[in-house]
C-alpha cells in the first residue's frame, strides 16, 4: 500500500513538474503572450514602459486597440513603430486580447488540461 502510494505520488510529481515546465517554458520568455505574428513587436514596444500585465488584462476590439496604440504614440511617448510593425501589433492584440479574450481562454484550457 505504502509502495503504491509512493509510486503514485512520484508519478504525480513528475507529471506536475512536466506540466509546469512546459507551461513556464511557454510563458516565461514572453510573459504570457501566446505565439503568433506580432508577438515580438508587442513585447518590445510595450514592455519598456509598463508591465505586459497591463496588456494581457484587456479585452478590446480592433478600434479600441487602434485608439490605444495611437494614444501611446501621440501622448504616452511610445516610439512610433514602422507601419508593418504597427499593423502586426494591432492584429495580434485584436486577435488574442479582443472582446472574447481569446488568450485568457487559452490559459484556462491549458490550466484545465494540466490539472
Amino acid at each position, binding site marked *: 500500500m505504502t509502495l503504491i502510494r509512493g509510486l503514485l505520488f512520484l508519478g504525480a510529481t513528475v507529471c506536475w*513538474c512536466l506540466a*509546469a*515546465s*512546459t507551461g*513556464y*517554458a511557454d*510563458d*516565461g*520568455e514572453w*510573459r504570457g503572450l501566446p505565439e503568433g505574428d506580432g508577438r515580438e513587436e508587442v513585447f*518590445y514596444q510595450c*514592455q*519598456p*514602459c*509598463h*508591465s505586459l*500585465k*497591463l496588456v494581457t*488584462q*484587456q*479585452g*478590446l*476590439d480592433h*478600434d*479600441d486597440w487602434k485608439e*490605444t496604440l495611437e494614444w501611446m504614440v501621440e501622448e*504616452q*511617448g*511610445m*516610439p512610433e513603430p514602422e507601419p508593418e510593425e504597427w499593423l502586426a501589433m494591432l492584429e495580434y492584440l485584436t486577435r488574442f486580447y479582443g*472582446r472574447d*479574450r481569446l488568450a485568457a481562454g487559452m490559459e484556462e484550457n491549458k490550466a484545465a488540461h494540466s490539472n
Partner: protein
Amino acid sequence: MLLAVLLGFKEVAARDFKEFVMPKDDTIMETESVNLYELYDKDPRLADKIIFGRTPCKNRRGFLKGAGLATMGTMIGAAIPFSRNMPAGFVPLALADAHGMIEGKDGLTVLNDRPVNAETPAHLLDDAVTPTSRHFIRNNGIPPEDMNPETWTLTIDGLVQNPMTLSIADLRNNFEVVTKQLTIECGGNGRGFFDPPAKGNQWTYGAVACSNWTGVRYADVLKAAGLKSNVIYTAHVGADSHLSGEEGKLPISRGVPIEKAMDPNNLIAFGMNGAPLHPMNGAPLRLVIPGWPGSCSQKWIKRIWLRDQVHDGPKMTGKAYRVPEYPVAPGTKVPTEDFEIIEAMPVKSLITFPETGTILDEGQDTVQVRGHAWAGDDAISSVDLSIDFGVSWIRTTLQDPANPYAWQRFSQTVKFPEKGYYEIWARATDTKNRMQPFAIAWNPKGYLNNSMHRVSVIVA
C-alpha cells in the same frame, strides 16, 4: 540603502525570476526566496529585458531607457548618472537583496507590476478601519525616488494672494492637525466585470479602503493662501514621473472644483493609521479627497495650483475619469465631447464576511454577515441582504460613520432554510434614497460600477 518604496519593483523581479527560471532548474521550484543575481546568472539579457526594459537589440534609444532606468534608479534609491556605461546584464551591487513582495502590504492581488497596481480581496477588508497593509495601491506613473519628509515641500500658487511653499513641519505648526477616517475608492473599481470589457486595470472589488488619515484641512491651507475671486478649480501635481521616463512629463494631474476643495473633510495628509504614509500610498504627503474618484487624492503632492478654468492636466481630459452624459448600450462608441467628469462616487457596499466560496460546517445553518457601505458625498441610510436571489430582503444593523466620509459597518445574522448553494447579496441605500443596482450601467472606460456585491455560501 534601498528605499522601502521600492519593494513593489522587487516583487516584479521575484516573480519574473520564478517564471523564467523554473523550466531550467526544477530545484528552484522549492525556493521561495529569490535573488536578482540568480536571475542575471541564468540569462542576463533576458533579465534586463524583463526587469528593467533594457532591450539592447531593438531599442532605438540605448539599452536602458525610460521606465527601465527609472525602475533601476528607484530600486537603488538614487539616480544612476553613468547608466549609459553599464553593460547589458550588469546588476548594480545595491540590488543584492532584492526579493519578496510589496513590503508593508499583506494579501493584495497584484493586477499590474509596473507600475504597481494592487487590490485587496473583499474578505481581507473586514477591519472597521483599513490597516495600511490592506490599503489598495493605484499608480499611474513611477513613484518618486525621494520621499524624505524632512525636506519635502508643498507649493500653493496660481490665483492666490499669498503664494507659499510649506514644509511638512510648517503644515503641522501653522494649521490644526486632525485625524479622520476617510473612504478612498478608485473610479475604476469593479471595471473587471464590464462586458464588453473596458480598458484599464481590471479591478474587481478591492480598490477601496477606509483608513485613518492625519493631516491638516485642505480648506485651511487654501484660506491661508487667500483665494482670488476668479478661482474655479484646483490642479494637483505630484512627484511621480511618467512611465516613458520623459523628463517633466506628468503621469497624472487632476483637480476638483473649488467648492469641493473647500469642504472641511478633505486633508493634506502626512499620517496613515498613526504612522507615516506607506510609500505606495503617497509618502510623505498626499491629498485625501474622500467620496470622489481616488485620482482626486493626488499622491506625493508637491504643488497645488489654483486656476480660473477646469484643470486640463493629464487624465482630466479626453475620456479619463469621465462617463457619457447620457446612458449608453454596452459596447457603444461614444464621442469624446459627450463625456463628463466624474464627481461623487455612487452608493456601494461590500460584504467582508463570509468570504465568497465559504462552505459551512455540517449542521451550521446561520452565519453573521458583515461588511461596509459608503456613498460618495452622502451617507448610508440602510443596507439589506438577500439570500434568495433578491426575492426577499433582510434589514441589517447599520452603524453610524466614525465621521463624515467614513464607511459604515453593517451586520446581520442570516439563517439558511436547508442545505444547498446560496448567494448573499448586499444592497445599500443612501440618504438620498438611491440604491445599488443589480446590473452595471455600462460606460466605455469602465467607471462607477456600484452593482451589488454577491458572495456564495454552501450549506453542507
